[in-house]
């Protein structure tokens, strides 16, 4: 099962969809289903054998571009495709062919970011994802969405420039784009240029990864986008980006300087996000701020992952939890209420999941993260995390209280698919799957 299919299929389908307009959505659905199957197969392969390296076009690295599918990327690829499928069902008839095309592009892009082992490809996929997402955000075609899309686009393009510069700096020194190649020879780089490139990459990817203060676009974009798109953003591009940060930070630059930097950024992002969410009246805006907070949490986990194995596990759990819960909440936010049993279920389960109650995935995420923190003797981080957790509890309690039981207007398919999406967090929390996966070697990096 060749991982490149995961990118190739959606790209191809995306380009042939315009040929048959009205069948577009169904074709896209098929493609997504196929992709999901492949990703699950890939996941099982990685689960059994460990990291998979695939070389494209027959050149050996460092010349040839290649795909490196490690445990985390396999998991994320599966999550992204699976959730994309469910989410697409949830969006249902709202999608016409242009939308489906963009959707597929975004999915393909974020999958690519996850599974590529080559920073230039990473940049390319970033571009694909970003452009698709701008268009998707704008796809509601009203003033709000336009505003959001434009802000997103401005910052996104700014970010991609920085990424490009960062990559260029590295290439200028090492004449290589392969992550592992770079990682092995990073020490030979000239220090100043190395740090410059790190800064560039962090900034550039940080824009997509919603870390403070690069996430100015987030509230407006999420508020502008329709529920389906917002949920796609929350489990697709943003997760891919945060994964990219994880990969670059953990593989290329696992250094103490970076460690403290990333940790600080994470904590600040967490606090800012949660606090800003507390006052929000608009649901989508509140959820947007809340996802900023969650991103902060994941960033903290990444930082700690540089010398704590538990933190790596935390990254896994947190990503899954946030992906499923936040995506379903965004889908829910389209209509002002939880009337039927399915939507009530969705609302409650996803809130419990995102606040991190056992046995949801979020709990394990918090658990392992705090374990790592206490091993690293960082009481202050723990206290801050708890504080933000209480704030989170406060505004989610308010959210539940406000929207529980109101009438809503969802098609049955939408309701059930969002319920399934919410349940994912519970499933992944109960199964020892992710745990096992996390224990597998993660890019064979130092410190773990």
């Amino acid at each position: 099962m060749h991982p490149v299919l995961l990118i190739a299929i959606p790209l191809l389908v995306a380009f042939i969809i315009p040929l048959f307009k009205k069948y577009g959505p169904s074709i896209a659905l098929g493609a997504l289903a196929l992709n999901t199957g492949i990703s699950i197969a890939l996941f099982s392969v990685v689960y059994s054998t460990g990291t998979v390296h695939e070389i494209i076009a027959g050149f050996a690295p460092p010349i040839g571009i290649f795909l490196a599918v490690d445990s985390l990327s396999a998991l994320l690829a599966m999550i992204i495709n699976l959730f994309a499928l469910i989410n697409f069902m949830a969006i249902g008839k709202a999608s016409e062919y242009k939308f489906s095309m963009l959707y597929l592009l975004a999915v393909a892009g974020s999958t690519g970011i996850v599974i590529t082992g080559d920073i230039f490809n990473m940049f390319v996929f970033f571009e694909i994802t970003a452009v698709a997402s701008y268009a998707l955000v704008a796809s509601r075609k009203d003033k709000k969405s336009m505003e959001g899309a434009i802000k997103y686009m401005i910052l996104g393009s700014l970010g991609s420039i920085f990424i490009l510069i960062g990559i260029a700096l590295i290439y200028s020194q090492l004449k290589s784009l392969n992550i592992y190649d770079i990682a092995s020879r990073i020490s030979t780089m000239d220090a100043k240029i190395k740090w410059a490139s790190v800064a560039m990459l962090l900034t550039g990817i940080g824009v997509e990864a919603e870390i403070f203060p690069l996430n100015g676009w987030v509230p407006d974009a999420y508020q502008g986008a329709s529920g389906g798109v917002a949920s796609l953003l929350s489990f697709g591009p943003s997760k891919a980006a945060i994964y990219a940060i994880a990969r670059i930070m953990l593989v290329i630059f696992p250094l103490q300087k970076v460690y403290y930097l990333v940790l600080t950024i994470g904590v600040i992002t967490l606090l800012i996000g949660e606090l800003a969410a507390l006052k929000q009246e608009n649901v989508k805006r509140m959820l947007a701020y809340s996802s900023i907070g969650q991103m902060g949490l994941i960033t903290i986990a990444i930082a700690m992952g540089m010398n704590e194995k538990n933190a790596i596990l935390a990254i896994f759990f947190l990503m899954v939890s946030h992906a499923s819960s936040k995506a379903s909440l965004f889908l829910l936010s389209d209509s002002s209420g939880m009337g039927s049993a399915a939507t009530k279920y969705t609302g409650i389960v996803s809130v419990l999941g995102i606040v991190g109650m056992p046995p949801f995935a979020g709990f394990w995420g918090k658990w392992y993260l705090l374990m790592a923190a206490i091993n690293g003797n960082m009481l202050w981080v723990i206290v801050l995390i708890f504080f933000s957790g209480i704030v989170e509890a406060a505004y989610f309690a308010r959210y539940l209280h406000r929207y529980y039981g109101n009438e809503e207007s969802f098609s049955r398919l939408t309701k059930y698919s969002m319920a399934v999406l919410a349940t994912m967090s519970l499933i992944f929390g109960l199964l020892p799957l992710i745990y096992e996966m996390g224990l597998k070697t993660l890019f064979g990096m130092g410190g773990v």
Partner: protein
Amino acid sequence: MLDIILAEILVAAIITFFVGRKLAAIIAMAVSILPLIALLDWASLYGFNIIHLGIEKSISIPIAGVSLNLAITPLGWFFALMIIPLFPAIMLFSYSFYKKNDGFYPFMLLALLSSIGIIMAKDMLTFFLFWEMMSWSSFLLVYRSRDKEAVMSYFIFSSLSAFLIFLGILIIYQQNASLLLSSINIESNAYGVVAIISLIAGFAIKSVLMPLHAWAPYVYSKSDEPFVAFLAGGLSKLGYYGMFLILFILAGAKVLETYFTNLSPNYILAVFGALSAFIATLIAFMQDDMRKLLAYSSIGQLGYIAIGFGIGTPLAVSGALFQAFNHAFFKAVLFLAAGAVAYRTGKWKISELGGVGYRMPFTFMATLFAIFTLAAIPITSGFAAKWLLYESAIDAKYIFVAPIMLIAGVGAFLYSFRILYGVFLGENRYPNIKEAPKSMVAAMFILVMPLLIFLIFPGYMLDMMHDALISGNIATLNHNAFVIETSLASYNTIAVIVALMIALIPAILIYKTRKHRVVDFMDNYLAGELPELYDNKISMHAASRFYKPIEEIIGPYFEPGTMSYYMAIYRGLKAISDAVRKIYTGKAGDYAIYVTLFLLIIMGWFIWM
């Protein structure tokens, strides 16, 4: 056996989610009886002394990389006998209480599951996991009340308690790299003390100890009574289970003493308990809502347990456990009775009720007995518990705690009579209501039974808690079935009972020899006034603001109430959040500037490092 039971409960919880009302009730009842049977079976096999058995029934369930270890420990055994019997009765009660199955039974069964998990947990992770399950399943039950204050305060406070406990557990983990209760010993340094205090605070939130009680009045007074019966009877005891675990089994009390050499920290816990007993009692008899009154009375009665744990002598702790046991049952009965009254009359305000007891005699009897136990009328088991606590306070020479807890005991009479008179006696305002349905009455009387047993044999209760005390390194009192001996005095139930029998003789003689005539309620001395002239419309019920004179004196001292302070904190947070929100100006230009600034800053960081 245990794991099978847990699995059955889980399955039943899922089933009851879908089936109809009656079937759900029956399934829930059947399933909730199972663990009780298991416990009694265990008792019949080995007697009450598990610890001498040497073996622990333990199982482990793998989940997400960790395994949940459950075992029946002596302490867990005692608390199981206290908490698990509540569930069948509550299910029985709710059989006719609910008109439709809207998610009461599944969540209640989840609560049962998690409470079994909590009291049988063998390591802190398991404990915490089930604790959290308890939190959210009970949150969902609170949630059915749709009351803003109740929902929000419960959610926020329980997450606060969760985080405090979590913090404590983490520190403990860091100190001994293991979470098995058997292998934990808390070091006596700043970290360890922080752990203990945060754990106790976390538990104190659930077992409504002032000033962390603020959520209780809202939640208790707005949720359905069957659930509140569990909340007041069971959940609060789980909090004290945790406290016992930390203070005695993990020897937290000793750690605190060795750390704070000069000021004795346990005294502080005792003082908190005494204050919450005293203040809550004073607030209680100023309430007009029956459920709010009962809520404050719970806060007061639970305060006694904290006093016992604080004093920490064998006397005190056995008194506290005794009190916990009694409270579990009589408070459940009282809340169920409130539910029954509301079921018939649809009213909770005492000023709107009155004379219900004439028409609902059995409900009244159950309530009366529960209230006797609450007010610690002698030879009820309530008195034995309070007596032990008083003795311990005198024995330890706690001159601040002792008078306060005694006067709180007197105050209990006041709010007890508020209920008895305002709701059940006085003017016959509901002449044509019926007695509560049989299932409800049955439930109440089932819960009264244990109190009756320990009324005559307080010694058996001490036998029951013997192993728990031993496992907490606490000596046990010398006693037999009837007599409890302490260094200060002794309490002999059989003497009291015999004396009572003898003392009843003249009363009965007078009562029997002189015949009496029962007259109509309206044939009443009203200074010669004639009710029938006003078609009996004269209000003869002095129930609204019953304790007005004393209310006007002490009322102002309890304004504006604890919740307002918490609300002030909440508003402060909102203000901060408003300030933070302003960072996102909404102008793309500013954001671009942020990005560049960020870049420069981290570059600066790298150069500086």
